[in-house]
């Protein structure tokens, strides 16, 4: 097998942070090459370099033994390198065919109108070649998620692709959809395309890939032929050895249940979910993206309409009508998407720290500026938020400090139940440890914590019990008092294979 793509000593830094250091490996043509690594290991940075989104600080790439230096995603596509991202980017109101050739629609020479007959012909030829059975005249929005993903792949392949990157394509798919995706990927590989397959899931890697490369903390750790490697070896490579060091230990006594959710159902999101969170306890809530984890937190927080079931929070009976009502029942919620749901981006750190809590620093609706400032300063100091002044806009802070600020907003004694949605996403290692410290601190002071996370090592190290979701149902709750639950056990539940 000849080499299709070669990374040679790729290094990339952002500010002072090293995202990739001296990464080198080869990808053979006509194979599936899996890339694994934890969040922050450098997978997506490497793929963005491959796609021409970033340029490396040093190092080079060779494509079919010629130098390859894409300046933009457009450049990369012209060279035959395409990426299908996790988030789908089809225009829902246009047809499948229009989506496939978006930006490159065949047009008549004089008037510039779209030649629909040619468009249909091209699309049909492409779909035939890829053995795709999707109606090309349907609107993209009417397709299932799996079909949309295949249309995206088809779009990537409509320009003679040599390398195709699939970024966690199965995260949003059901098992049956995954198997049809795999069949499709094999057809591609047989035609000579090199597929880079990014995934967390061991099963998929062993089923689909010929080769697997592990990245950790921006460095290339290993490249194995899948046939010669064990799962245990891959996990060791992925996780490294200093696993326990970054998780501070917690010493809390678990008390009465503060939050009880009983047979909670929200139409089309999740059904019949029952769980308790006790004082001093951290309950992990995990599962694949789209399995309904975030919806549960939002439902408890009064932000998702509940069709059946009940909630009890510190004696108050829910479901709650609004986030405001949930706050009054001592519930705090830190959302997953900081920029979209957490911050007033252009406003100051001070305003962001006191957002929604100005009552504490005001009389008769008039803010006492001195006490607002004092509160903000106390929060910033206590939680070691590094900032360039309380009045500087929050978007100048680093991701880790932003996240600490977002959590700090809710660290007030009135909140006994804390819902954290991916509290360490996009945060560097140092800030992660501090956030774990914050969580432990809260639990030790008797708060009940529900922590949603996709990072299994974090879930296993931090949570007293682990609830796993599968397709909108609670697949099981694992007792993790001795921190001994394995990733495999969680994943089995998360993909709905076996019931405990």
């Amino acid at each position, binding site marked *: 097998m000849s080499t299709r793509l070669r990374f040679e000593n790729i290094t990339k830094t952002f500010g002072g942070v090293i995202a990739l250091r001296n990464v080198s490996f080869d990808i053979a043509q006509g194979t599936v090459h899996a890339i694994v690594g934890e969040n922050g290991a450098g997978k997506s940075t490497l793929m963005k370099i491959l796609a021409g989104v970033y340029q490396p600080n040093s190092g080079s790439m060779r494509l079919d033994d010629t130098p390859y230096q894409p300046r933009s995603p457009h450049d990369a596509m012209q060279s035959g390198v395409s990426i299908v991202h996790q988030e789908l980017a089809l225009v829902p109101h246009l047809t499948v065919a229009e989506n496939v050739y978006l930006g490159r629609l065949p047009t008549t020479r004089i008037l510039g109108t779209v030649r629909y007959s040619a468009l249909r012909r091209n699309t049909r030829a492409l779909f035939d070649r890829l053995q795709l059975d999707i109606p090309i005249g349907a609107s993209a929005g009417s397709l299932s998620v799996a079909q949309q993903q295949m249309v995206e792949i088809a779009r990537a392949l409509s320009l003679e692709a040599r390398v195709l990157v699939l970024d966690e394509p199965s995260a949003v798919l059901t098992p049956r959809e995954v198997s049809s995706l795999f069949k499709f990927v094999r057809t591609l590989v047989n035609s000579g395309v090199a597929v880079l397959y990014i995934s967390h899931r061991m099963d998929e890697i062993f089923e689909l890939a010929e080769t697997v490369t592990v990245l950790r903390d921006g460095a290339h750790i290993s490249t194995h032929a899948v046939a010669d490697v064990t799962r245990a070896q891959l996990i060791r490579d992925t996780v490294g050895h200093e696993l326990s060091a970054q998780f501070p230990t917690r010493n809390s006594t678990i008390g009465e249940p503060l939050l009880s959710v009983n047979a909670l159902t929200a139409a089309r999101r999740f059904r019949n979910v029952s769980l308790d969170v006790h004082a001093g306890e951290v309950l992990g809530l995990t599962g694949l993206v789209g399995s309904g984890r975030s919806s549960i937190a939002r439902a408890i*927080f009064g932000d998702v309409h509940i069709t059946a079931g009940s909630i009890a929070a510190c004696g108050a009976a829910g479901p709650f009508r609004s986030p405001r009502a949930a706050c009054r029942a001592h519930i705090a919620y830190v959302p997953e998407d900081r920029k979209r*749901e957490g911050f007033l981006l*252009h*406003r100051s750190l001070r*305003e962001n720290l006191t957002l929604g809590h100005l009552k504490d620093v005001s009389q008769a609706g*008039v803010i006492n500026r001195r006490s607002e400032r004092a509160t903000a300063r106390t929060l910033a100091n206590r939680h070691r938020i590094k900032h360039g002044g309380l009045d500087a806009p929050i978007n100048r802070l680093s991701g880790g400090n932003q996240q600490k600020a977002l959590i700090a907003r809710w660290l007030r004694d009135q909140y006994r139940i804390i819902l954290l949605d991916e509290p360490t996403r996009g945060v560097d290692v140092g800030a992660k440890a501090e956030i774990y410290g914050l969580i432990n601190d809260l639990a030790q002071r008797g708060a009940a914590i529900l922590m949603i996370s996709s990072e299994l090592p974090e879930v296993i190290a931090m949570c007293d019990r682990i609830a796993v979701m599968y397709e909108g149902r609670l697949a099981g709750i694992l007792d993790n008092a001795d921190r001994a639950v394995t990733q495999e056990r969680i994943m089995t539940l998360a993909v709905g294979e076996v019931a405990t």
Partner: protein
Amino acid sequence: MKKQTAFLVRRLLAARMPVILVALIISVTLMTDGQFVQFANIVNVLRQVSFEATIAFGMTAIIITGGIDLSVGSLVALTGVAAALVMRATGDFSPGLAIALGGLTAVVLGGGVGAMSGVVVAWCAIPPFIVTLAAMLIARGAALLLCNGQPVDGLPEQVLFLGRGFVFEDVIGKSLPFPVLIMLIVYALFAFTLNRTVFGRDVVAVGSNEEAARLSGISVRRAKLLVYVLTGAVCGLVGLLHDGKLNVGDPKVAEMWELNVIAAVVVGGTSLFGGRGTMTGTLIGALIIGVLNNALNLMHVEHFWQKVVLGAVILTAALADAGLRTLERKTE
């Protein structure tokens, strides 16, 4: 070095409003041989901008939430007619009581119509542009219906003071017109509310990131509703003063005011995307437009040209805002 320049440019852009106003006043003074700075003329400019500026403070609050209100002009007409009808009916007993009742009617009616717009905007998730466009037509029609299209006269003569009178005339002479005093009071109230109260901060939060505001336990709907109510009430106040200026309640007044008011807000540096804006900026924006109009009059520039100039000023203000945003993104 580059960083320092960017910092300097940003500070200049951020503080651009007063600078522009002062520069404008100086150049206008020079170009009119000092005619502009004559005391009577300055008072005149202030009086000319006072009505629309008063409403502009309410509009600023609405625009900061990310909304817009096209119904303000029609509301001035509607509340003016309603107040005039009340004053005519009650004027025989006591002029003072009649004016008080008329004013109360105008403010409550204005606030009520604002509340209706606000409820639809906040609860039904319909774009404010459409809601208030409908409110604009309905209120204008209602004004015409109330009085059969005829101006309402026969008001108590004391009402003239509201539109044409001067405060403390015995002490300071004709230097502080009553509508200008009202404008300054409304300015102070709105500036205080926006900067110093929980409600004001809620308004900014809603416009800056509605989702984050809601998830922080802020009542987004209440904030949205209230800005429309307040603006409606201010329109009622102006409706009453306008009766005093004309000595009649006229259903055809204040046509196109919504656009002049929005222009003052935008020239004052408030972003139409919501989340940022100041009452002081709006006051200065209204003054810039007022000074320009006045200067063009003094220089005998043709009326048609005045519109072109005003349009260019609005466009420049919007460009400055866009430039500021780009610069902020780049220096982050």
